[in-house]
């Protein structure tokens, strides 16, 4: 995991701590122990533990009449890491209104949007998949970034602009705690020798990320248009001269609708991924342009059971050019990628026992990822969770197939205050 404490964020934390005396301040947080155990002995990673940490999150919230200061600092102890004690500023921002219609949020923050459940088409904000696989709370899937956010409101319409000066990629398995498929090695790899990192774009003005969303409610329907200019969030490009993976340029134009229907909620989202580095589709080392779409439906079946179903598809443009340019024998991506996901959440014992199952299944890549968890809230403050992450794939080069050695079980104890 990447540790971060930039000077800007530090300043913000200072600003938050020294917020005007008149303002109300609130401090809260939680203490959490998380232990995960890899159950596949063939996993080529140095440790059998997929997680072994004690985490203290401190949350400081302070607000005056027109500004809000927010800080969230995580202190971790993990004896499998060096250094053993780590600190990460999860969030540290100032939020203030300019006039009646504009809000600004400056600093380290977590941003997300879009309609899907664990599928992100127009949400190109950084994700932390390592946290996700290791069983940390869902909020840790969304990784923080240093950004400037403007939100304009007008009635039921809102317009968001997010500028992230420094490109922030997703956190993906790098071989330390979780193994991954390495196309160079042609195998699932892990360990120090295969520590994987993509080459981030230079820190230049033109290499920032820009995202925008225009949203409006039409009666019961939430509609939104999205735009993104930046880079692929994972290093899917290959620089053969430097034998190094990198993040190719990307622009995304998309839209989504979310509306109640048939006693539940229905959503549809689509995004056109304009891969700037390969507009003709004849460079096999850079993704082709594609159209990513999904539809989903969620419904409360009984008061204790909620289920949803999503169908996601990616369509690759210029597939002919791609296959023609691909070296002989290299595994080719299909023109259409299909993915089905389903979540079932059950609540028992007065909503104190939460059982959640989430399955990803791709019929085109023939791989599966199942996530299950059981959380019991002993009191409002104390809860215990038991969970599992299971991967399977016919081929090792597929999305989830590449993680198939990472099956794990975890136990998580939380004390909140």
């Amino acid at each position, binding site marked *: 995991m990447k540790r971060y404490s930039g000077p800007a964020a530090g300043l913000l934390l200072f600003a938050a701590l020294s917020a005007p005396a008149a303002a109300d301040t609130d401090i809260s947080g*939680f203490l959490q122990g998380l232990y995960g155990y890899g159950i596949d002995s063939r996993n080529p990673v140095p440790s059998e533990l997929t997680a072994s940490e004690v985490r203290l999150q401190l949350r400081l*919230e302070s607000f005056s009449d027109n500004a809000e200061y927010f800080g969230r600092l995580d202190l971790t102890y993990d004896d499998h890491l060096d250094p053993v004690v780590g600190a990460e500023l999860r969030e540290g921002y100032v939020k203030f209104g300019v006039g009646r219609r504009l809000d600004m949020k400056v600093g380290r923050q*977590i941003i997300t949007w879009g309609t899907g459940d664990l599928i992100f088409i127009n949400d190109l904000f950084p994700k932390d998949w390592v946290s996700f696989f290791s069983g940390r709370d869902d909020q840790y899937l969304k990784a923080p970034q240093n950004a400037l956010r403007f*939100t304009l409101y007008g009635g039921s319409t809102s317009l968001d602009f997010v500028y992230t000066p420094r490109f922030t990629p997703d956190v993906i398995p790098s071989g330390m705690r979780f193994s991954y498929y390495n196309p160079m090695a042609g195998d699932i790899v892990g360990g120090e020798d295969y520590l994987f990192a993509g080459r981030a774009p230079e820190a230049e003005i033109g290499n920032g990320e820009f995202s925008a969303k225009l949203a409006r409610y039409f009666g019961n329907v939430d509609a939104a248009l999205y735009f993104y200019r930046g880079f692929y969030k994972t290093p899917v490009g290959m620089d053969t001269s430097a034998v190094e993976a990198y993040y190719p340029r990307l622009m995304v134009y998309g839209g989504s609708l*979310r509306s109640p229907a048939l006693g539940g909620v229905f959503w*549809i989202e689509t995004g056109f991924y304009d891969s700037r580095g390969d507009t003709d589709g004849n460079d096999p080392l850079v993704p082709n342009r594609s159209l990513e779409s999904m539809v989903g439906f969620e419904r*409360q079946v009984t*008061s204790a059971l909620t289920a949803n179903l999503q169908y996601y598809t990616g369509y690759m443009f210029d597939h002919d050019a791609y296959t023609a340019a691909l070296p002989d024998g290299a595994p080719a991506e299909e023109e259409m990628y299909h993915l089905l996901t389903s979540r079932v959440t059950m609540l028992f014992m*007065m909503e104190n026992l939460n059982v959640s199952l989430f399955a990803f299944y791709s019929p085109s890549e023939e791989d599966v990822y199942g996530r299950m968890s059981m959380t019991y809230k002993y009191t409002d403050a104390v809860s215990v969770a038991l969970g599992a992450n299971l991967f399977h794939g016919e081929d090792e080069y597929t999305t989830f197939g590449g993680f198939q050695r990472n099956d794990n079980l975890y136990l998580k104890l939380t004390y*909140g205050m």
Partner: protein
Amino acid sequence: MRRSIRRFIEEFSIEHPWLIIAMVTAITVFFAVQLPGIKIDTDPENMLRADEAARLFDHEVKDEFAISDFIAVGVVSEDGAFNSRLLGDVHAIVEEISEIEGVVADDILSPSTVDDIRQDSEGVLTVSTLMEDPPENDAEAEFILERIKSNPVLRGKLASDDGKAIALFIPIESKNESHRIAGEIREIIARHSSGEDYFIAGLPVAEDSFGAEMFRQMALSAPMAGLIIFLLLLLFFRNWKVVISPMIVAVVSVIWTIGLLVMTGNTVHIMSSMIPIFLIPIAVLNSIHIISEFHDEFQRYKHKKTTIRNTILKLFTPMLFTSLTTVVGFASLALTPIPPVRVFGIFVAFGIAVAWLLSITFNPAFAVLIPTRSLRNFGKTDEAHGPLSRALHVLRDFNRKHYRAVLAGSAVIVVISAIGLSRIIVNDNPVKWFKSNHPLRVADAALNEHLAGTYMNYFVIDGGEEDAMKDPETLRYIERLQRHLEKSPFVGAATGLPDIVKKVSFELFGGDPGKFAIPDSRREVAQDLFLFEISGGDPGDLFKFVSEDYSKVNLWVQLNQGDNSSVRSVVESAKDFMEKNPPPASLDAAWAGMPYINIIWQEKMVKGMLAALLSSFAAVFVMMVFLFRSPLLGLISMLPLSITIMAVYGAIGFVGKPYDMPIAVLSSLTLGLSIDFAIHFLKRAKNIHNETGDFEKTYSEMFEGPGRAISRNVLVIAIGFVPMFFSTLVPYITVGSFFFAIMMISGAVTMLLLPSIFIVLRKKMFPRGPGRPAGEDIRTEVESQLKEEVMKVGMIVAAAAVMLVSLPGFARSATPDAEALMKEAHLAMFYAGDDGISEVEMKIVNSKGKERVREFTMMRLDIEDGGRQMYYTYFRKPHDVSRLTFLVHKLPEENDSRWLYIPSVDLIKRISSDDKSSSFVGSDFTYEDVSGRHWTEDTHTFLREDEYDGRAVYVVESKPKKKYKGFTRKVTFIDKENHLVLREEYFKKGDTPERVFTAETVEVIDGIPTPTFRKMENIKKNQYTTVEFSGIRYNVGLDESIFTERYLKNPPREYIR
């Protein structure tokens, strides 16, 4: 960003046709699944906003005087209706009608139900039923007629003076049931009638039946028009595989539009039922241009993809603009103050946008998929020598020779039309939406000929203080007003309190004709009225004419004509009288009743439509100047549409057809449709001239391809709407004729006038320049690229404009008396003050005594008492939901809108709201317990009066109207004094409640009694939840903006600390 739309389309539609078809199918399925949720609303009252003053007053009057809307039933017998047999029939019929569900049996006006006052043989004044039992002989029957004639309250109302007609007025609970009730009445009559003609009339029946009929017509005429259009296209292009795609485009755009309409919670009103019929021709329009071009060019390239590419290249700009102008035309309807018209305009605009998108994506995709084999002969017919071309050549030669005559002729038409325009009469009458031979029209005519009239208006005169109406001077003044109103040819009778007073006085003095007058003193008036109240009659009848405190009188003004112009003249006449004859005391007067409501919305509509027409005219003109980059060409392009509008509306003025709702709405259609041809014509002329550089060639060429496309369009659409001429509903005939006229006239003007102008302005419009050989497309390429950039901006502006116009929903208001108690309780519990803030501590205690705490701040804002309401909840505890906010927009009789803000990921999520019976944050309270279950969702029965916890209470039992998960039965204990719910028991099965609510502590805060400690016991699960409210503040002046997305993310710190 430089990637042009056109290239995008090429890639998508031409290279990946299946992808387009799959996407269109998916979206269509998405919208199609919405369709079953369709809600229909045929109440013309909804033409006004729910909070419109005239409408609220109308409801107030109906509530105060307990008046319902009436269905009029009449029987006419030329041999005299007052004989024992016929009265026997009538007696039996009324008996059965009073059993129909939805009829207010107590208030039926008929010989066997109304009270008559008279002195009996012993000199005792009695009030008794006019015809308690059917008369035994004809003499008794005659006597009943005499009594009706001698009672000014009944005269002309129940029977005609010549005794040939009898009328029954059937009051109904809801006018939306009129069509069904009228049907049941018809059946009853059929069983009892012995051969006379019975008629059923009245505005409620006309309006409700229109609704029913409308949907039948819609289901018939839209597919009919579609079929004819299809056949005509087949005739022109002779290849069904090609011709099917415009039809798919039309159907798909209708599905998307109606789907979105349903999805956004709008009801299908009289206006919106016409959406399909408006959309189909417009949707087909663009496709015809594409096919026409494809057809004429295919044999030249002999290659599908090339032909399609060239077609799109040529037609992209004109099609975009024709669609945009039509969108603007309809979107302008959003400016009208009439909610259904706004919905109609916005959704048709949306549909047109969809149709445009489909015609440039789906049409090419579909064409690519047609096997080349089946196109072998496509377009091979020698177009240049076909009948259409020959006709166009004749037109061309005629025009070349006589262009001056064409110009002069146009000028003459403009002048004549202007005269016609000045003669337009604004009028409407829902009864006249039926053809004159429709049974409802026949009944209307028959009843209004013989009787005082079936159109009931109410004129409420308010004396401002108690007993004001016992003053003889005031009564005499009102009587003079009545007689003045009756002078109008449209007023059959104006009945009121003076008539009752006179009749009582007359009978009291043993029928002395000299005493048939208002007594001289206040005391005598009061005595007469008191006598009437105690004489055994139904005092409820009296209080239909006067308020219980005698401060207001309600004149029943019966009109024999429902035309808005007639109603208006009566309203004017009353105003005139009161201005010229100042009343003895200060009196306020106002109108109510369905016919009056109709004139209110008509006025709004005429003004609104004019504003819409003018603004879209201006917008279209600006767009044209922009498109042609020349004010001159912009002006010329506006000519066909201006002349078409003038000619069509001028003709209406001459024919004498009143300007009514359908005609008003059609103005926007005229604008959008008639500009289309001009755009295509001018755009193509410019392009051809750029290619050839020669005016004569350009002129000739315009009568080839472009001329053929326009003529085909004119013919297809015009003829496609001919079936509507045969509809039974006049508005449909009007719409059909309009389409026909618009197409014919604007087509003719385009093909005649524009070429004539070309000749005259040849030098200015077509400056001589070197022609470029065909094929050298570089400049046009660059130009069109440029244009596309410009158009993108235009499209975004248009899309934003459409988006920003909000879609109005209708708040319904219906509060039957039976539910009054539950309504009061609901208002006391959930609508206290105008807004409120409170800190809430919720404790959930399970069967083992373990306790969980939730703390939150709750804010509430009422937009309308008993109606729209908003809740904002900010959670503090437990820690894992801290700072979470929850927003509910509550709409009675509809699903709530609920949003949840999840702070840890900074995300707002709309959540499903179908299940109101699910637990609120894990407690024993349901969502509905927190915000209240609207009283109209259940039927209520009064059980008893009782005592609970030392307080006097009413006990009411309620059962859900629709199947409901929360309970099957609930019993509510309502405090008599402050209407608070002190206890509520929810049953599912058996006699033991599953849950019991109790208000444990009631405190008075800011003068408002408030339950501050509440408990919900879950007997089934053996656990309970308590809720304690603290720091309650009422009427703090919360702003509506707090209840929006922005504040979900940023809690309003002035209230939440």
